[in-house]
């Protein structure tokens, strides 16, 4: 189906189903319960983040997973894409389509420039070149290019580029009738529009922005499967495997790596454009090296070079980041209220260090656990689980082995 083989089609349909049903899947607990307060993730902002960062990491995986080139400055493209989209909202109008297209174009051109220079080197030298470009972009965006007092305020510095009432918006209105800044929309459907479905104690939110981003994520995922299974994808894996042989086989590896770099830059720009479409403010922090590091973390967490890994990695990272940081002592007491007082306080005292202001600690430990025990990332975890179940039935290990050289899902 769709030009995919049976296995890929199944994978794609599973991802599609999960994306479309996410409002149900992410809200497993009935509204108003203590579990729901913290663990439910089915609210628009977080759901949007899941799919948008999914797009970002899917793109990154095309570069890193296939060619092995570790870009440590990928967040720069995300940032450039975000700025481009907000500029579109400021100058042209609030429809997200032109904004997203412009972010892809701008990020692609930026990637072409940086990639052309950086790909002259490989290994860690390449990584440091990309890091240096991204840090330069970040530093300039934070200060020199963002001085509101100067005539050349491209990024609005620390606050981030935001919409104002006096922006021109030539194809739309600067101010709505009730005196507000107009909202981002897809041909009239506002990105922040939601409708709520209530079943028993459960509340499910269907958000327009999420579904737009989700569908774009599915398209991106589909394209990434096609790339993985294409001759181009095979050439990229050849780059990772043996550049010497590749060159002596009559293939020029540079255009291949550059193409992969630009494609993943466009993916990042798309993600940036979507972020801005969901929330039209672009901050320079998106380009900081820690943001680039986070992309690498998400890719490796999920499973490098696998199809589904990026989506899992992005989801895992965003989920824990958002959930852990919002738990505070009061919430802990509420959860543990079934315990005797002394025990409750002792537990809260210990857990206190891992949640709220300590969420970095938990996340750091989680990363380490995954990297140490699951070298292949979450995908490997899934495979191990699957194998555990399969062991009970007659094994079909041979077919397993023969499939190994093609990327696992």
């Amino acid at each position, binding site marked *: 189906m769709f030009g995919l083989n049976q296995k890929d089609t199944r994978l794609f349909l599973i991802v599609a189903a999960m994306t479309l049903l996410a409002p149900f899947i992410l809200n497993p607990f009935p509204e108003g319960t203590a579990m729901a307060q913290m663990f439910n993730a089915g609210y628009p902002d977080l759901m949007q983040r899941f799919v948008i960062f999914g797009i970002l990491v899917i793109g990154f995986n095309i570069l*890193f997973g296939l060619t*092995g080139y*570790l870009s440590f400055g990928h967040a720069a493209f995300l940032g450039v894409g975000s700025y481009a989209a907000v500029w579109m909202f400021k100058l042209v109008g609030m429809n997200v389509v032109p904004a997203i297209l412009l972010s892809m174009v701008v990020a692609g051109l930026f990637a072409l420039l940086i990639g052309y*220079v950086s790909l*002259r*080197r*490989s*290994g*860690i*030298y390449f990584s*440091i*070149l990309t*890091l*240096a*470009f991204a*840090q*330069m972009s970040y*530093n*300039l965006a934070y*200060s*020199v290019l963002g001085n509101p007092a100067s005539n050349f305020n491209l990024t609005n510095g620390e606050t981030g580029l935001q919409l104002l009432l006096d922006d021109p918006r030539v194809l739309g209105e600067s101010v709505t009738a009730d005196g507000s800044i107009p909202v981002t929309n897809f041909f009239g459907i506002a990105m922040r529009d939601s409708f709520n479905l209530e079943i028993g104690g459960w509340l499910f939110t269907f958000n327009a922005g999420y579904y737009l981003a989700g569908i774009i994520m599915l398209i991106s995922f589909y394209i990434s499967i096609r790339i993985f299974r294409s001759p181009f994808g095979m050439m990229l894996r050849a780059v990772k495997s043996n550049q010497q042989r590749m060159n002596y086989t009559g293939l020029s590896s540079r255009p291949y790596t550059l193409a992969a770099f630009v494609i993943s830059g466009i993916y990042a720009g798309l993600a940036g454009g979507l972020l801005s479409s969901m929330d039209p403010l672009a901050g320079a922090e998106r380009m900081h*090296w*820690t943001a680039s*590091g986070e992309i*690498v*973390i998400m890719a*490796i967490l999920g499973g*490098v070079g696998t199809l589904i890994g990026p989506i899992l990695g992005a989801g895992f990272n965003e989920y824990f980041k958002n959930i852990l940081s919002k738990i505070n002592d009061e919430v802990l007491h509420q959860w543990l209220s079934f315990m005797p007082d002394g025990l409750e306080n002792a537990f809260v005292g210990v857990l206190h*260090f891992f949640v709220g202001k*300590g969420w*970095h*600690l938990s*996340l*750091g*430990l989680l*990363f*380490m656990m995954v*990297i*140490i025990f699951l*070298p292949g990332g979450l995908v490997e975890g899934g495979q191990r689980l699957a194998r555990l179940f399969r062991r009970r039935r007659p094994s079909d290990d041979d077919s397993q082995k023969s499939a190994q050289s093609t990327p696992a899902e």
Partner: protein
Amino acid sequence: MDAILLQILNGLDKGSAYALIALGLTLIFGTLGVVNFAHGALFMIGAFCAVTLQRILTLSTITIDETQKDFLGNPLKVKTPYVESWFGPETGAAIIDWSVPLAILFAIPVMLLIGYVMERGLIKHFYKRPHADQILVTFGLAIVLQEIIKAFYGANPIPTGAPAAFRGSFDFGSMFGFDPNTIIYPYWRMVYFAFAAVIIGGVFAFLRYTTFGMVVRAGMADRETVELLGINIDRRFTIMFGVAAAVAGLAGVMYAPINSPNYHMGMDFLVLSFVVVVVGGMGSLPGAVLAGFLLGILEAFASMNEIKAIFPGIDQIIIYLVAIIIILTRPRGLMGRPGVMEE
């Protein structure tokens, strides 16, 4: 002219810190082949060794002073450090005053131990894993370490002063015949530079003139051959990891009076020191030191008003710009060997 001399001094000082961290990173990379993103955290822990010793030395007995009131209007609790009650107020105060230099003695065993535990407990399992995995697991460790420090010491910087004898600054200007006060330089920063020079010299001498060092250097160049000779290179490499941790830690201890230590100071240095290592050339110790000082001095010059007037914002990007130019013109940095970390 005086402005230039001043910035050279500033650059040497910045360079000292870069060079010390880059040296340790390169030692670890050269011996174990591991890219250690937790190295900045080791620097930070070193600085907190100084903070900890200062805290230990100022552990106090509490007496109530009825004549004074605290902020709630209750009688004021006055703290007297134990060392002052044991050694007398003057000697005690002097010991507290010298807590940073004393912390060197405290930091060496602590850092060697941390280095040893880190290598045996975690890094060892990552020798054969891809560099990206090494980066990620050590990055995770760095986050964990700094969050632990934050949980104990808070996020705010903690002032950790130099001994009174080293406060204030020296007037090079009048010494070299310029106007007075044109080139002033703090005593402690000079101490830091001298200290860095001693440590760097010490590490090089250790590698060059001791048998242990020679074996390690041979192992860095060709691990298999050294192993074939029946030498247990692993154990020596473990020790080198401890040494590298100690170098980072000492750099941190001595840095504490320059800028009040905070839990994220390691991350602030990490990226820059990686740039330094790569500009120096992966695996080259002299390269790391050279690049450290070079980038330190360039950074100092870029912050001069005269230069910023021509290139606004140049001080924000100078290090990265120079790194890009060097890596593009010299494929393996200043002194790197071919084939190291190029795949």
